[in-house]
């Protein structure tokens, strides 16, 4: 089911939670809404579900205008952040709930509902747990039951709000992989909300990066990483260093030192660079100089922070065998970088 969102806006008591958002979700796609808290990602998800109604704009499911339809009419599968399983019902009754509340004419028989619940338990790899109660399940199992319950109504689209938020790291990684497999198998159009950039970039076909009620960028993981559309996107999807630079005649100069070349027009810019895109330069070669103020080991690499005289700390991620200990003077140079307008850079560093 294609979903097309046009100029969607939502206000809560004068607060603009969502501001002129337009987005096309393709049928069968797994798409992530990524952003910090307050970015409007959950609001967008709830608007698509029909749990909230927009202050402006339209939502279309395929050819049909869903904007004014109730949540029941939209037939969406919604998985809540804390699962919202019905505590007083067994797992099988939870899963069968959506079928059992259908009008008499279209309601399957009890036996059929039971059979469907068992089938879905099989699908989410919890066979035989139908008679348990939610309180008797682990977090990961509850998550799967919530998903099975949402799938039971054969939804046109599957919506998940922070699906792995309440789980510990290991279970989260397992479920992430499992959800991807499940999606590939069932082919539901799926939208999920997350604040975890790794989760979004690893799991989704496309990622929608949101900030302050607006969409900053829509793209694949590679797009987001390699071609960030704004300083916000760059900063949100990984750690970053921001340096004030000057572009003159195609050269990027940092306080008099030329760091590289660019086709950009002349003027002041902010240079954004990832810690792992910085390399050490040999003594005497041009670079960004500073004193090592911190050096620690993290996994397979060394994290080094250097204090520059003018622009504060710069973080580097170097190979584990890289030299440099606290107090050393070293110089570094970016291998890859992104240039943004200087003012925009200031906004990001300020925030």
């Amino acid at each position, binding site marked *: 089911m294609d979903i097309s969102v046009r100029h969607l806006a939502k206000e809560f008591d004068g607060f603009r939670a969502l501001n002129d958002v337009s987005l096309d979700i393709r049928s069968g796609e797994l798409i992530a809404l990524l952003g910090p808290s307050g970015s409007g990602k959950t609001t967008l998800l709830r608007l698509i579900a029909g749990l909230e109604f927009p202050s402006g704009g339209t939502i279309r499911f395929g050819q049909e205008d869903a904007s004014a339809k*109730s949540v029941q009419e939209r037939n969406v599968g919604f998985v809540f952040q804390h699962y919202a399983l019905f505590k007083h019902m067994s797992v099988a009754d939870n899963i069968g709930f959506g079928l059992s509340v259908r009008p008499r004419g279209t309601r399957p028989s009890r036996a059929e509902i039971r059979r469907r619940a068992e089938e879905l338990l099989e699908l989410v790899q919890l066979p035989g747990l139908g008679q348990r109660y939610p309180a008797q399940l682990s977090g990961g199992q509850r998550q799967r039951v919530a998903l099975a319950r949402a799938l039971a109504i054969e939804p046109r689209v599957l919506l998940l709000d922070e699906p792995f938020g309440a789980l510990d790291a290991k279970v989260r990684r397992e479920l992430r992989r499992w959800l991807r497999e499940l999606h590939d198998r069932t082919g539901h159009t799926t939208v999920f909300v997350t604040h975890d950039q790794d989760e979004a970039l690893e799991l989704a076909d496309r990622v929608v990066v949101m900030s302050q009620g607006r969409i900053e960028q829509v793209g694949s993981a590679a797009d987001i990483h390699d071609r960030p559309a704004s300083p916000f996107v760059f900063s949100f999807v990984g750690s970053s260093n921001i340096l004030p630079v000057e572009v003159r005649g195609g050269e990027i100069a940092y306080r008099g030192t030329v760091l590289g070349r660019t086709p950009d027009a002349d003027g002041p810019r902010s240079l954004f660079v990832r810690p792992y895109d910085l390399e050490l330069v040999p003594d005497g070669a041009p670079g960004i100089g500073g004193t090592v103020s911190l050096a620690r080991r993290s996994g397979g690499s060394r994290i080094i922070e250097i204090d520059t005289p003018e622009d504060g700390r710069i973080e580097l991620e170097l190979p584990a065998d890289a030299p440099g200990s606290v107090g050393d003077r070293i110089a570094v140079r970016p291998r890859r970088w992104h240039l943004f307008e200087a003012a925009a850079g200031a906004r990001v560093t300020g925030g």
Partner: protein
Amino acid sequence: MALEAVHMPAADATSAAPRAPRPVTTEGPLVKWLLTAVALAFLAFFLFLPLVAVFAEAFRNGLDAYFAALVEPDALAAIRLTLIVAAISVPLNLVFGLAAAWAIAKHDFKGKSLLLTLIDLPFSVSPVIAGLVFVLLFGAQGYFQPLVAWTGLKIVFAIPGIVLATVFVTLPFVARELIPLMQEQGTGDEEAAVSLGANGWQTFWRVTLPNVKWALLYGVLLCNARAMGEFGAVSVISGKIRGFTNTMPLQIEILYNEYAFSAAFAVSTLLAGLAFVTLGIKAVLEARYAGDIAATGRGRH
């Protein structure tokens, strides 16, 4: 190996401590004993002693006198009236309490805090005033007197008036029991239900109500106990017509004033018994459904 390394220090710590370690939140035996003794003495004097006195007085003249006092026509009429009043006012307050709690906990609207305050009003107003208010409204010189005259329905000094006063006095019980629980539960389950296609009615019966059933039952029990035991408001509006508008508490007072002590205490044992039954049902429910109750949030209150 790693496991051992973790466990070793803990083993050392326990073997190094000569005394049995005490959880940090408990006190020494003397303090414990003193506190318990104070609490028990207090309970014995204020709760247990009076109850024993009620039963002792009731049976002072023997079992025959006790039963004779209970089957005496006026006493029977009072029992019947009390049951009727409770049977009408408790369901009314059940419906109102549910509706009010639902509105307050699950929705935002103007005047919500006013409604919350109003629900508490019967707790803060003397029951005598509650009775007087209805006399003022429906009595011979009351504001609604024309309406009363037109319908020919007798309200003051009759069952409708007693029911009105009782509903007023017992109004907060169910709502007060439900509001904190429903607020804590939020609207997540309801959202899940509607997203699965349930309409409002199905959501209420299959999700909202089961989530609060224990709190609701407890509220109803308390409401019922109060409805049957209410004295002040009812005494003002009932007119205390023996055999007609006397409820059990009023009947007890009349008997007592007439120095019919053992009869008064005999009827009292019924009300005291009601309290036991209420507490008993509550205890049984809590023991039997402890898991469910904890799961629905009651255990945390």
